[in-house]
């Protein structure tokens, strides 16, 4: 365990085993029974006690096909996903560079640690008013929020990874008088890949949340967050729940892609990413 609670990769541990737990857990029957019971309680409870506009499982299921194929929804998903991917790509590149620098050079670590852990702890939602004033009420503010949310968790994880490069590798580098850039980008980055992947997972979750918060705050038309907000305000709760389901699906889809990529391209890292 690291000593400082603030610099730990917060919820990265669980994400790896999450999917397999959802789909291939034991006792399928118990799960199905519990699922049906939950849906039943939801349906009956809403029809008995809640106003008629509140979403019910049957209503959501009926609304689902129409919403998923509608143009508004597709444009909204495209907007959100594009912003998340762009933001993640930018955060990944810069975050890796800063993280490796902090992990390998003590001077950078000492200089930047205060800022990185401070910004990592800073709730991104508090920065929204500032970001909207700087970047305007538009897509740029959403992109900036996503980058801000993703950047620091990548930095923190890459830094931990760069610190834990096996010392033998570095000794070999030293023995052969390898140049610093080879040590950094050929040894450190690849040795810290498991950490990078863990950080990227964490960052992806935060990025999605950041995109939704930004859409709420900015009232951005082409976003799933706004789609949910708009339909919930117009008391189309069945339709709005489909938006929430889509958000969960985006998160899970991302997990599946990451798992597949890890298995396909870095099969030797699989164990580490699963463990921690």
């Amino acid at each position, binding site marked *: 365990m690291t000593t400082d609670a*603030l610099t730990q990769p917060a*919820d990265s541990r669980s994400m790896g085993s999450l999917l397999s737990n959802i789909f291939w857990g034991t006792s399928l029957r118990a799960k199905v029974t519990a699922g049906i019971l939950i849906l039943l309680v939801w349906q009956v409870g809403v029809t008995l006690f809640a106003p008629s506009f509140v979403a019910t499982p049957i209503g959501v299921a009926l609304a689902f096909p129409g919403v998923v194929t509608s143009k508004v929804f597709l444009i909204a998903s495209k907007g959100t996903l594009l912003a998340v991917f762009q933001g993640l790509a930018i955060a990944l590149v810069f975050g890796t560079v800063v993280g490796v620098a902090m992990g390998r050079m003590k001077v950078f670590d*000492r200089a930047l640690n205060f800022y990185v852990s401070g910004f990592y*702890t800073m709730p991104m*939602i508090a920065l929204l008013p500032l970001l909207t*004033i700087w970047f305007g009420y538009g897509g740029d503010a959403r992109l900036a929020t996503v980058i801000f949310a993703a950047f620091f968790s990548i930095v923190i994880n890459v830094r931990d990874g760069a610190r834990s490069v096996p010392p033998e590798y570095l000794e070999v580098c030293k023995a052969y008088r390898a140049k610093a850039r080879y040590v950094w980008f050929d040894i450190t980055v690849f040795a810290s890949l498991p950490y990078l992947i863990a950080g990227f997972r964490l960052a992806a979750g935060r990025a999605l949340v950041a995109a*939704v918060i930004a859409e709420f705050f900015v009232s951005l038309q082409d976003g799933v967050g706004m789609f949910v907000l708009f339909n*919930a*305000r117009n008391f189309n709760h069945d339709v709005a729940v489909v938006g929430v389901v889509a958000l*969960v699906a985006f998160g899970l889809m991302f997990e599946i892609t990451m798992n597949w990529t890890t298995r396909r391209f870095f099969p030797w890292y699989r164990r580490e990413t699963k463990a921690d």
Partner: protein
Amino acid sequence: MDRVLTFVNSDRAYVRWGTVLLALLAGGLLWEVVGLQFNQAIMAPLIGDGVDHPGTLPRLGRYLFDDPEYLLSLLQSIQLFATGFGLALLIALPFGIILARLVMLRVALESYILMLYVTPMIALIPFILSILGFDFWPKVLVVYLFAFFPILYNTLEGARSVKPEMLEVAKSFRSSEFAIWTDILIPYTLPFALTGIRQAAGRALVGMVAAEFFLSTSGLGEELQTASRNFDMAGVLATILVITGLGISFMKIAGVFEQKYSAWRGLDR
């Protein structure tokens, strides 16, 4: 070049503290210069000149020591946080331990808890708004939802790690139900639950600000909104500092407990 690098990377105390101090100074200076360059509606400096460019630190000082209304908002926010977070603790911890005891229930509910754990709770705010309206309790519900699932999910992780052999031994010695709880279940799940509590503290803070933004505005969220609508950047930055300070102190407190009990985690993980 090499000697410079060795020097700045050395572990001598004055190098270490010098680097930290220099970095803080450089950051502060950058903030000050940028703040003085721009219009006060876009960026406020750290200290400022008090006329055209009101500074953030003086504003922070006035907020904290000379502004009863602001302190009232701060208290309002803390009250909201404490109510939501406390309720989440009170419900999630016993529920998690019950799941550790009743294996069948745990297996049945696990997947659904995981699904809710990954659901961005922020997307549920519009529903809470249109079903429950503008009051104190809907906001508490938001904070509660943000905090509940990280705690429950991590307690569940701990519940999964309780070794069945232990329960069997306890059973074969006819241990009372109370003793099973206090001597096996709680010590086993506590370190995991504390990890969840630290995570939840961070998330609940986001929930607090989100609730104060999007439901009826109050507390620090309202201060932030008012300041940003008036293009009062010094106020915005000072409030952000206050919120970050709250977050860091909540997480530090939770982190202290987590460290204290982290040795209780079995070595088999």
